[in-house]
């Protein structure tokens, strides 16, 4: 879709839209030279300060284990045979099962919650009848912190995947729903009029104009929602699920094992980052037009 302005022999090809500002984004390709050292300065400094704090015993090891202790805990968690401490712990070798379980709960909950939010949000944004029927209920529930549903979920669903999935679906729905409704409502009246005068029916306007036009807002909602999926999932796992990252993290607290607590936090950060990147990547591909419109990249 992007026009080449320079071909691979290095000669400049005729610019197709010569009276146009060049909004064409440069092709992104990985190269070591594109790495910005400034981005890594702060994390590196934190790592050094952390190492120094341990080396010089500024804090007792029980409060602040060394980076190497955390690496050991991570390795023990992933595969105990890599380091033979000889003291198997509750988390020894459970990483794969924890990662699969946590990802399953977060991903399935996110998929169901956001699918519901998009479907219901589009209906509410599009039809005033649907808005009257559904929106007041959502608006009453929305200010209540979503985490407050934890006791309800455990009593109602017991322990296991169900309360976790319920909490994730609910949390994601609340986060995404509002953005979808706003996105649908803000779709330009002129686009709808243009579609109508070209012969589109109401249903066609909804599918071919309103939903594509609302996509930037919908993706903003999904991005907030995916972060919320992990938040709700961890909360549920700490109290209601006997496995997963949240479970390992909370047991680490109970045993005063700061090394595994930090290891758990690192894993959650990594998985959260990974899922956010996936949403951003899909958004970049689906929203080429909106990025060109604003001259920026998501």
């Amino acid at each position: 879709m992007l026009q080449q302005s320079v071909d691979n022999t290095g000669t400049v090809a005729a610019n197709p839209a010569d009276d146009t500002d060049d909004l064409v984004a440069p092709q992104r390709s990985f190269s070591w030279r594109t790495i910005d050292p400034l981005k890594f300065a702060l994390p590196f400094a934190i790592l050094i300060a952390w190492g120094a704090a341990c080396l010089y015993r500024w804090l007792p090891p029980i409060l602040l284990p060394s980076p190497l202790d955390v690496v050991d805990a991570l390795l023990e968690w992933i595969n105990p045979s890599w380091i033979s401490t000889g003291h198997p712990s509750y988390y020894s070798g459970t990483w794969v099962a924890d990662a699969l379980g946590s990802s399953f709960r977060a991903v399935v909950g996110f998929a169901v919650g956001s699918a519901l939010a998009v479907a219901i949000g589009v209906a509410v944004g599009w039809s005033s009848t649907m808005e009257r029927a559904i929106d007041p209920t959502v608006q009453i529930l929305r200010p209540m912190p979503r985490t407050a549903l934890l006791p309800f979920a455990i009593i109602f669903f017991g322990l296991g995947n169900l309360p976790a999935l319920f909490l994730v679906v609910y949390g994601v729905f609340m986060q995404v729903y509002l953005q979808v409704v706003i996105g649908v409502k803000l779709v330009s009246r002129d686009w709808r009029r243009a579609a109508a005068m070209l012969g589109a029916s109401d249903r066609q306007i909804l599918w071919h104009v309103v939903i594509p036009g609302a996509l930037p807002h919908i993706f903003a909602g999904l991005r907030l929602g995916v972060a919320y999926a992990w938040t709700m999932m961890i909360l549920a796992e700490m109290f209601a699920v006997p496995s997963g990252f949240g479970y390992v993290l909370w047991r680490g607290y109970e045993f005063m094992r700061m090394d595994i607590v930090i290891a758990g936090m690192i894993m959650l950060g990594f998985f959260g980052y990974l899922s956010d990147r996936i949403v951003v990547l899909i958004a970049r591909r689906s929203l080429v037009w909106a990025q060109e419109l604003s001259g920026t990249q998501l």
Partner: protein
Amino acid sequence: MGSGTIGHPAIESRQICKTYIGTDRRKSVALAGIDVSFNKGQITLLVGPSGCGKTTLLNMIAGFEKPDSGELLEHGMPIIGPDPRRGVIFQDPNLFPWLSVWSNLMFGPKMRGEDRTAATERAESLLSMVGLLKFRDHLPHQLSGGMRHRIAIVRTLANAPEILLADEPFTALDEHTRRKLQHDFYEMVSRTRQTVIFVTHNIEEAIYLADRMVVMSPSPGRVKEIIDIDLPRPRDILDLRFNEYRKLLFNLITPDVIAE
């Protein structure tokens, strides 16, 4: 189109009234009993100073708004809503930014389920008329403002409307681009003797395009004068007779502008 029934009304407005209630709850009468008909196969220009209700009238003919009272007919049938028989060119190009130029042009035919080959042929010939065939796979925002306006005109015409409605489409453009687009626009609509209703506040543009001119005056909006423009085509904006029309219109409209 092209049936030789020029002079037969395509659109009839009978005693159309429209009042808006502003945020301060004051009523403003946009249209006070508009009686006018727009002929088939003619280019009719709606001109007048801002606030005379010309855009309101056009939006009603398009079916975007409803009159408070009065009757609005297209070929004798009441207008109840937007219809592909009445194509609109907006003030902004208003293209769908997520669709390529070509998909924008095919939007109408696709929605209406029209035969693809006929629509393709129409769109391709119009696109080459405005010299933009090679931009068919671009996104609208990769084009300049003038190009986007031309694509918007082609999009509406490629949908084969019986009546073409234009709402100050060239107002936001610079003078040179505007001239070029006025020329292109006339070339496109005159080939098929397209029925056109065109709103503008630009007197020169109006005389350049019009077969017939409906001059409106503001507060409340009403028809002041209907003038047939009897000038040969292509029209020369520096011609003496062109200038006489310019003077006539200037004298008609200026008192309303000053009275505002």
